[in-house]
Structures are given as structure tokens and as C-alpha cells.
């Protein structure tokens, strides 16, 4: 990865986006689980952020089949 010729492939980028999307989705949900005193449940900003993370994960999934093509 630290060679002068390494470049991210579409697959690697896809995996990265998938991990960020899934991780981000879980982290946003954790706000309510960890901060149990919060009122109002999942708010509108949180819902939008969850949708964005889900979209990012889906985008990542669609890139994985493109294999070793440079990203």
C-alpha cells in the first residue's frame, strides 16, 4: 500500500465505502443507545444521516464487482 505504484482499486474503494457506511450507520444508532437519557428518539437530522450512511454502504457494494480497475 505504501509503494510508489500502489493505487486504490474500485474494489478497495468499494470496501472502504461499505465499511464507512456500515460503521457510520452503527455509530449514529449508538448515540441513542449510549446516551439513554436523550429525549425524542431518532431525530430528523439523525434519520437523514442514517439514510446517507446506508446509501454510502450501498454505493460501496456496487463498486466491489468492478475488481482491480483503478479507482
Amino acid at each position, binding site marked *: *500500500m*505504501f*509503494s*510508489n505504484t*500502489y*493505487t*486504490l482499486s474500485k474494489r478497495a*474503494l468499494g470496501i472502504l465505502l461499505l465499511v464507512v457506511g456500515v460503521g457510520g450507520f452503527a455509530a449514529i444508532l449508538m448515540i441513542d443507545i449510549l446516551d439513554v437519557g436523550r429525549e425524542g428518539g431518532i431525530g*430528523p*437530522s439523525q434519520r*437523514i444521516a442514517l439514510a446517507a450512511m446506508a446509501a454510502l454502504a450501498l*454505493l460501496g457494494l*456496487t*463498486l466491489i*464487482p*468492478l475488481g482491480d*480497475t*483503478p*479507482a
Partner: protein
Amino acid sequence: MKSSSSLLSRFQTAALIAATIVLGFLLYVYLAYAVNLMQFPFDYDQGEGFELVDTILFSQGRQPYLDANVYPFYASNYPPLYHVVAAPFVWFFGAQYWYGRLLGFLSSLVAATAIAWAVQRNTGHRWIALLSGLAFLASNTVYHIGPLFRQHMFMVMFETLAIVVLAGVNEVASQPRRRRLLLLGILLLLAAGYTKQLAAFTAVGAFAFLLIRQPRRAFFWGIGFAIAAGGIFLALNLITNGEWWNHVIRANINQYNLDQTIGLYRLWWSLHGALIIPAALLVLYELYFDRLSIYSIWFVFAVGVGAASGQWGAGDSYFSTAVAAMCILSGIFAGRTLRGGWRFPTNYLTRLTRPLSGLRHATAAGVATLVPLLYLAYGVATFHMPTEGFLFDDLARIFNIRPNTNFAFYDSAGRIAGGYADIGHLTTQADIDAGWQITHIVREAQGSAMTEDAGFSIRAGRDVVGNPTQLLNLASAGLFASRELIGMIERQEFGVIVFRGQLYPVDVLQAIAAHYAPETTIGMNGFTYIIMRPR
């Protein structure tokens, strides 16, 4: 076949000519607005005067990151570069608004030129390159803030230059030249960040691009960038005894209004949709069929910045970086379409769409027909013009364009979204006269004077007391101890207080209401200024 091709070419040319006329006219409107504002000697947009105060302080070898709890209760929440660059003008011309507005205006022209150059370099299509630059200047958002004494457009200029410089850096074979370009790009990113904090997202986008292309390069240059940016940050914090951190970071975390964000995204889409579509299509194309360019990554990050536009004090200006990125991407899309430069290497998506391959030529012809019309549609969607004044009143009458604002000004945005700047109209001699009338009141007042627009105090030769928006920012963050200011108000040490938007913290406003009473109101530039006198 030949005649249909010729017909298509003529249609494209006609559409491009029409788009050039509309966008060229909007450039003329922009010039008229800029020249008008440069002659206006008071605050036009709230906050301009405080940027002038920052500039004056730097010109005197002082800094504006001060303890706002003590007289004159003044502090700035913006990084210093724009004001430092403007400071020499103070030595030669005194405290004036025109040079700050000129800097902003010239910045927008430089950004537009960089956009056009990027499109020209990518497509070789000069006409589309010209339209891309004009499209940037025609944007309602760019029009609004370009010729103001505000640092935002200065930041957008540095961001655009940095991205254009870094765009082809990985393909440069000569190592010394590549390093020089990387260094230049990173210095421009630093300049953008120390003009306004929002540029941090462009820096993240630029490094994401470098990371995708070559992680090693991104890592080592990223460390250098972090050391430089962090070193300047720490130095400023030390010099200002920690006030830099309080004012530029802590006080800038404000209340968030999701409805304002959604409204501004909708407005951005309704005004710029004709060019957002090709820009987004190019991002998708690069994602699945080509390498991701820095422009695509920048666009994604810049559109994301819009999510912060719902903060108190934010507004449509938060979309100006996205407009710059959009203009480059849509220009590349248009140029490539007109040059027939699309290639679709085989992958699972081309295999999925194989049954539709018979439609490929028809689709290509359809898109080629549509592309020049997009610029025309964009020109119509972003259309704005004064409805009075030389040439404008005749045009308004001929085309039946009526003002849809409180001024002699038509703005296609309609000003329906919260956070959309209520500016863009030309100032009049009556506005200038009203400004001098308020200045006279401030000059003649007994004791001190406190004005929500700094310009009146500057013109009257008084101390500029209090920066209301920053005091409110600080109060919201629990960083403002209002006791001393309220004490001065209670003792009626101010002979006059001039309100514009009543933006001071609540307890300060309550103290003013208890000890001062409105004497008169003066209208300037569409705003009602309330002259408050001791009760």
C-alpha cells in the same frame, strides 16, 4: 444523414449563442452591482463593517482575537488572511469599503477563470469553457457575495485554484515539477483554510483524491500539511492567549436549524439544477467507468458542506464552493459530449444495459442536442437583474420583468428559503444620504456610541464597540460575560445605540430595552435602523 447532422450542429450553435447572450448579460449585471457597491460607503451586508475593523486592526499591527468581555467588547470569528491582504490598502486609502469589495469581486473573476481553464484543459472546447466560467458568475449565490467586503469569495478562489493545480499532479512525470505543483496546491489549501474555516472540507476532499491515487503520497504530504496547518494554529493561539481558539472554533458552533438546511438545498437545486445534473452524471461515470477526478471528489465534499448551512449565521454562501465544482464538472460533461469523447469499458453495468445498446446512438444524439440547452436553462433559472437604472428599466419594461423583492430588483430565487441573503439590489443616493444622517447622529452623541453596523462608528471617528453577532456566538457558547457591557448600558454611558437587526445577546437586548428608548427610525438600504437614546 448529412443534413440531419448539419441541422444538429446549427441547433447546437444557436443554443450556445443564446446561452452566451443570457450568461453574458448576467455578467454585465454582476459588473453593475460590483461597481455600485464599491461606491457605497457604509455596510451593505451585515458584518462587512466588522471585516473592515479586522483589516484596520491588522494595518495597525494589532489583531482582532480579543477578550470580548471588556471594552470595546470586540472580537472576530474569522481567520486572518483576507484582512491581512487588505490591510495595506488602509495605509494608503484609510478605512474604506471599496477595496475589500474589489478584492472579493476580483477573487470571483479569478475563480471563474480557473474554472474555464480547467474545462478547456480537459475538453479543448473553448466555448463551453467560457460558458462554465460565466455560469459560475451567474449563480445567484456568487452574485450576492462576490462584491462584498467578506472573505468568503477569497476562500472560494483559493479552493478553486488549489483543486485546479492538484488535478493533474499524479500524471506529471517529472518529480521536481510534480513536487512543486503539490507544494503550490497545498499552500493554496492552507491559504483557503486561513481565509475561512469552511475550506477544511475542500482540503479533506483534496487529500481523499491523493489517497485514492497514491496513498504513500497522500500520507507524506498529509503529514506536512497537518504540521504546517497545526503549527500556524498553535502559533495564533499562543499569540492571542487562547482567544483564537475561543473565537474561531468554540464560538462558531451554533444552533442548528434543519429546515433552513433543507430549504437551502432545495433552493440550490432549483437554481442550479440544469448544471447539477450533468455534474452528478460525470461523477457517476467516473465512479463506474473511469478514474475518479479531484473535481468529482471535491464536488461531493462541497455539496456535503451545504449540510452546515442550517447553522445560525450560515446561509446560501455555503453552496458557493459546490457551485464552482459543479461548473467544472458540468463543463467537462458538456465539452466531452459535444466532442464525442465518452468511452464505456466493459463491466457488469455495460453487460446489464446490453439489451439497450441499439438505443446508444439515439441517446448520444439526444444528449448532444440537450447539452447546449442546459446552459440556456441555467441562465434562465438563475436570472436576476435590477429593474431600474441605465438599460435595466428599458429591458425590464420590454421583457415585462417586475421586481419580486422589496427593492427594484428581480431575483429568480424568490427569497423563500431562510438563510438566503436578502441582498443583490443596487444602492441609491437616498441610501448614502441616510447613512450620513445616521453617522451625524453617532458623531454628535454624548459619551460613547454603540452601532450594530460598524460603518457608522468608523465614519464618525468613534470606537467600534461590540460585534453583535460574535457576542451572540460567544454568549450561546457560554463564553461571554456580559456584566461589564450591561453595566455601561445601565449607567447610560452610550449616548446613542443604533439597532439594525437586534442581534446582541438576549440579556444585552433586555438591558438596552430597560434603559434606552427608540427616538427615531431611519431607512437605509432596505433596513430600518432604530436610533435608541437613554430614557
